[in-house]
Structure formats: C-alpha cells, structure tokens
C-alpha cells in the first residue's frame, strides 16, 4: 500500500509504503479513518493548517470488479467532528493509476495552488488563474493544461470562502458532498488536485480473480433491483417516499405533497427529461442519467441527473415544483461547490425564520418563500460567496441557530451536520436509527441494510418487518450467526439496533473496498464475497468475520475521534421538531417520536458495540479491537 504525502507548507512530497495497513484497514474510509485517528490533533480548529485531508481509493478500485470506482475523502470536518465523504466517477481509479492508494494533504500553502499528480510524482503549481472560478471552469482549464483525460477534484467559491458545508467536486458532476471537506481544502489554499497516471494494476491470483469477478457481476446483475436502478437511478424511490410521508417538505412540515408524483415523480423525469444512461468507472449498473430540458426558460439545458436527493431537497424541502428549476439550483451548487443537502437545509431554515418573523426582509434584501426559485437561486449564491445574510448562514445550521433564540426546534441538524431527506416520523427503521448513530452526523448513507423494503408498517422502534422469504434470505451474503441474532430463528423480523450495527459495518466495508452502495450491490454483496475478492487480489487469507472485526474497529475509531473532540450523548438526538410536532401526509398524520423509546434503542445499539449508556467506549472494547488510544 502506497500513500502519497503532500506537504503544502514545505512544498514537498514523500511516500509511505506499508502493506500491513491494507490488511488492517483495507483502503477507502478504513485507511482514511486510521490515518486521521493517528495523525490529527484533537484540539485544533478544523481550519488550522495542522488539519489533514485524505483521499483514498477503495482496495478494489482500478480493477474490473463491478462498481469498484469509489474514493473516500476524510478530514476533521468543519462540523468539529469526523468528516468523510464518498464519491464515484473516475477519480478513484485515476488515483490508483498514479501507482498510489491514498493522497494525504498536510499543511497550508502560502498562496493558492493546485497539484498535479502522476506516476512519477507531484508538481505543485500556481493556482491564481483558477482561484475564484467555479468548478466547471476550473475543470475546463485544468483539463486543457494537464490533459483531457486528467481527473480533477476541485473546490468552488464556497470552499475558498470557508462555507462549512462546502463540497469537493469530483469532475463536473460527482461530489464529495457531505461534511464540508471543500472548506478544509480551501483553508489550505488548495484549489484542485489533478490525477493523470498510466501505472498498471496487478492481480495476485488471476484465475481465481476471474471467477470471483464473474460471481460478483452475476449477483449484482441478477438482483431484482438491477433493472429499475438502471432505468430510474435513485429516482426510483421518489413516488414511494411521498406515499410513505417521509418527504422533508417545507423544512419537515409536510410528509407528502399533493401534486408530487405528477410534477416531481419518477415517470415525469423519465418521460420528459431523461436522455440516456451513463456509468461510473467499472460499473455495469449505469444508474447515472443525462437529461435535457426541451422547452421553457431553461430550454437546451443539459446536465447530469435527476438524482432523488436533488428532487427531495430542492423539490420537497424548498418546495420548488419545476424540474428544470431544480436542475438549475443543483448545477449552481455544483459550480459553487456546496453540498446540496446542507444548502437546502440552511435555506429552508432561513425561510422558516422569515415566516416566523425572526428574520426581516431588511436582513435578507428580499422576501424569501418556499417554492420561490429566484429567491433560492439568489440565496445559494449569497451563501457560497458569503455575501449579506450568506456570511452568517455559510456557517451551517449549528452555528447559525445560536443567533436566533428559540429556533432550535426547526434547525434540522444532528451532531452539527444538516440532516437529509427522510422524515423519521414517517418511518422508524434501521435507516432512521442510523441518522443518530452515524459517525459523520445527520446523514442517510452510512447505515443501510441489505434487507429492507419500502412498505409501510406501524412504528414499534425496536423491530421492522422482514420483507424476504427464507429462499430470498438465503441469498443474502451475511454470516448465518448474525442473521440468526438479528432476524431470529426462524427469521421473523429485523432487530433495529442489531441491524444498525451490522448495516454500518457493511457500508464501511463497501466504502473501504470501493464498491457502490446502490441496492443491486448492497443487497447481494456482503463480507464473505468481499473477503474472497480481497484474498485473490492481494493474496490474503481473510474471512467474513475478520472483515467484520476490521469494520467494527474502523467505526469505533471514528466514534472515539468524535468523543475526543467532545461529542456527548445529548447530541445523539433528532431536532426537537420531531419529538414535539405531528406531520401530515397522504395517509393521515404521523405522530411525534417518543424520545424515551428512541434513546432506549440507542442504548441497545451502544451495548452491542461495547459502549456504555452514554456512548463512551469501554476499555475492554478498545482492547478487544486492538486500538491504540490517542493521546494529544
């Protein structure tokens, strides 16, 4: 395993080579977590030059293992806690073709720069020409200068201006969206990283590699979710989210919207906008789509999408009805380099403040309203550039809400990260508990189960229904002992705290080997198949239980990092709105959450990890996992 270390202050670089790191931390998020945990002072400000930024490709990336494109970026987040984000496209493979697994960025450059990386080394170049430009212009310029096939990770104006939820854009359309890593990159005066290597990637046991790759491909492509994931991408769930009442409409004040399916449903997207499919590196699923607006004021606009996150955030949370307007807002976020979820959350909060009279027209410069495209578009730009009211709101919800007494109830963040899409009152399942347990804060992507579905069911907090028949369940790649523990014998229902722990381990493994988490993969590929692929690729002798222990170690290190940054039990909480208010949806009314029962589930989840009732990691757990404690 080869780690490229770039020191921006010393304008120098070096390599660390250590094969043991791969067998202990795999790659991707696993490797990044280890490097962050071991090398980052817990007392610093996220924008301190001593903060580190890591980009690691997953262990399978660069090969033809299906969907192995993913790369993880990690740092001490501007939220103050563990920050990490995962992205597809071609960047992960480009890192591998430079002959490296990871890039570790240290220090701060005195002036704006970008770095060019290939198989021979690193050149740090003057970035004054691209500083201040949007990410599309930046990628255009850098591809002209460094070669058309160069893969570029860049920040926009938001990252330069320290917006705490700034993204790092991967090419034009992919993002390391969550946890504000673009602002960390901006604080280092680093505008972009360019990768253009031509190194080769070797396979330890080619014959067995061909066999396991075939198995993985057949599993993924025969998943019943394969067809609709190709056809609709993530938009497949748009309609059903409305029916379940889990939309975040108007800042989580409506669970469904009357005209949703007719205006922002998957059929409208497919019939009116979708032109063709495209794919990330090594992916046979092809869930990405290219869309074109054929009439109206945005006629001729061509772009990537629609992703369901775009339509849930801009369409439901901010109430924008017109899909071309949603495309336009998302493209602006991408160009300025801001996370779509956090941006929508912050704007929704701002509009609700205005509705409640806690912000005045004079404070903003106009009257903002849900559904108001022009206002939203203007606010996106003001926040990214930190102009006017945007100077404050670019600090993110947790810091902004301190300025508006009495607004905590509807500032929708968890552990400092703006919370996305699904309303927990509409559905209390493994995924919902995951919003609280997630080590990067309020987020929906790190606790995903291989056995859930989207049927409605009555809330009981501790269990959710098991949607699979015994035959279907037998096909799920999950250790039998764990299946029995979580699902019962015979399998009857899903124990939510137990599945939350397993589901986060599964996602950590996928994010460490660099495979995708879309349903055709998540539901078919588990620790046994991943260990077999690691063995033939690198010559290991791992099994599924060893991989799950690695995942547990990684998650515990992320959690320890947060605890050492000051995280307490009270931050494992949904915003007050969800405990106090009911929410209307097409099927009636969803009642508020019961705090005691939510906390009881959390404590059951903690106990399964070997953490105490307050979430502190017990000494014996640290020892069992072989973690060397951090000392400042």
């Amino acid at each position: 395993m080869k780690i490229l270390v770039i020191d921006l202050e010393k304008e120098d670089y070096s390599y660390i080579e250590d094969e043991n790191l791969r067998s202990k931390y795999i790659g991707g998020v696993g490797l990044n977590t280890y490097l962050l945990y071991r090398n980052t002072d817990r007392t610093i400000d996220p924008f301190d030059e001593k903060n580190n930024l890591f980009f690691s490709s997953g262990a399978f990336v660069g090969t033809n293992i299906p969907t192995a494109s993913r790369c993880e970026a990690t740092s001490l987040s501007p939220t103050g806690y563990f920050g990490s984000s995962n992205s597809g496209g071609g960047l992960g493979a480009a890192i591998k073709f430079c002959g490296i697994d990871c890039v570790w960025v240290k220090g701060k450059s005195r002036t704006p720069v970008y770095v060019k990386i290939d198989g021979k080394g690193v050149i740090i170049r003057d970035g004054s020409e691209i500083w201040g430009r949007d990410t599309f212009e930046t990628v255009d310029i850098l591809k002209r200068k460094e070669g058309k096939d160069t893969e570029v990770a860049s920040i926009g104006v938001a990252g330069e201006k320290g917006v705490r939820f700034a993204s790092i854009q991967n090419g034009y359309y992919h993002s390391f969206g969550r946890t504000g890593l673009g602002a960390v990159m901006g604080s280092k005066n680093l505008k972009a990283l360019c990768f253009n290597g031509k190194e080769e990637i070797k396979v330890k046991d080619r014959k067995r590699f061909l066999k396991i790759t075939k198995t993985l491909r057949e599993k993924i492509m025969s998943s019943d979710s394969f067809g609709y994931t190709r056809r609709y991408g993530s938009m497949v769930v748009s309609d059903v989210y409305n029916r379940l009442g889990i939309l975040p409409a108007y800042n989580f004040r409506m669970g469904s919207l009357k005209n949703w399916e007719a205006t922002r449903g998957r059929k409208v997207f497919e019939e009116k906008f979708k032109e063709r499919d495209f794919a990330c590196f090594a992916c046979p699923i092809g869930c990405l789509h290219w869309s074109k607006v054929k009439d109206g004021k945005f006629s001729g606009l061509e772009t990537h999408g629609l992703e369901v996150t775009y339509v849930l955030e801009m369409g439901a949370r901010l109430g924008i009805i017109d899909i071309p307007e949603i495309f336009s807002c998302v493209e602006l976020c991408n160009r300025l380099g801001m996370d779509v979820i956090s941006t929508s959350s912050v704007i929704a909060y701002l509009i609700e403040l205005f509705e409640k009279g806690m912000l005045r027209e004079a404070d903003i410069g106009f009257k903002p309203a849900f559904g108001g495209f022009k206002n939203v578009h203007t606010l996106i730009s003001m926040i990214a550039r930190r102009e006017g009211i945007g100077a404050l709101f670019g600090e993110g919800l947790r810091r902004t809400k301190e300025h508006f007494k009495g607004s905590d109830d509807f500032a929708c963040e968890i552990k400092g990260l703006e919370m996305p899409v699904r309303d927990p009152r509409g559905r209390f399942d493994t995924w919902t508990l995951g919003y609280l347990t997630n080590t990067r804060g309020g987020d929906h992507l790190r606790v995903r189960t291989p056995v859930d579905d989207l049927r409605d069911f009555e809330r009981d907090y501790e269990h959710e229904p098991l949607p699979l028949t015994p035959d279907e369940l037998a096909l799920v790649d999950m250790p039998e002992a764990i299946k029995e523990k979580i699902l019962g014998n015979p399998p009857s229902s899903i124990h939510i705290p137990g599945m939350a722990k397993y589901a986060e381990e599964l996602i950590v493994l996928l994010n460490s080997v660099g495979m995708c988490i879309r349903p055709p993969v998540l539901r078919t590929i588990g620790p046994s198949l991943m260990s077999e692929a690691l063995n033939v690729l690198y010559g290991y002798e791992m099994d599924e239980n060893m991989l799950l222990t690695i995942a547990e170690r990684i998650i515990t290190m992320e959690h320890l990092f947060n605890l050492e940054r000051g995280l307490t039990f009270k931050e494992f909480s949904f915003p007050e709105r969800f405990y106090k208010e009911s929410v209307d949806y097409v099927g009636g009314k969803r009642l508020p959450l019961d705090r005691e029962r939510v906390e009881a589930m959390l404590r059951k989840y903690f106990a399964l990890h070997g953490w105490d009732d307050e979430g502190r990691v017990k000494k014996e757990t640290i020892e069992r996992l072989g973690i060397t404690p951090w000392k400042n």
Partner: protein
Amino acid sequence: MGKKEILKNDENCAGCMLCVLSCSLFNFGVFSTEKSFIKLDKDDRTQRFTLSFDDGCISCGECVKSCKYNALMWKDEDSRN
C-alpha cells in the same frame, strides 16, 4: 478464417471502461488503460464517449463480453460460435 469484426455503437456507451479493463487483463495480465487494445475517449462535460481499437487488437472478444450497454457487438452474431 479471417479476423472477426467487432462493431461499436458510441451512442450506447456509458463510459464505464469495463471493456478497456477486460481487454488489458486478458491480453496483458494487468489492468492498464495504456496497454488495452480498446481505447475510450471521454468528454466528461457532456458525458459523450468514443471507442476506438488499436492495430494490435486480435478480436478476442473480451470487450464485447464485458459490455453491459450494447455499445460493442460482433459484426456477425453467429461468429461468436
């Protein structure tokens, strides 16, 4: 018998690179975008892709087998047998 012909349809190409990877693994035992006999030219801004074959291509068909988007096919379907 002469070399079998592989046809391409760039309109269907999704840019996944599976053909490039499969070619280089089969013919050179490594993953290499340089060595692969099939090349993929990407326009990332518009997500348009252009496939081309190097002179060294031996029509082994690994690229056809790997393509899941109907961008590569045999000229005569029967020639696979």
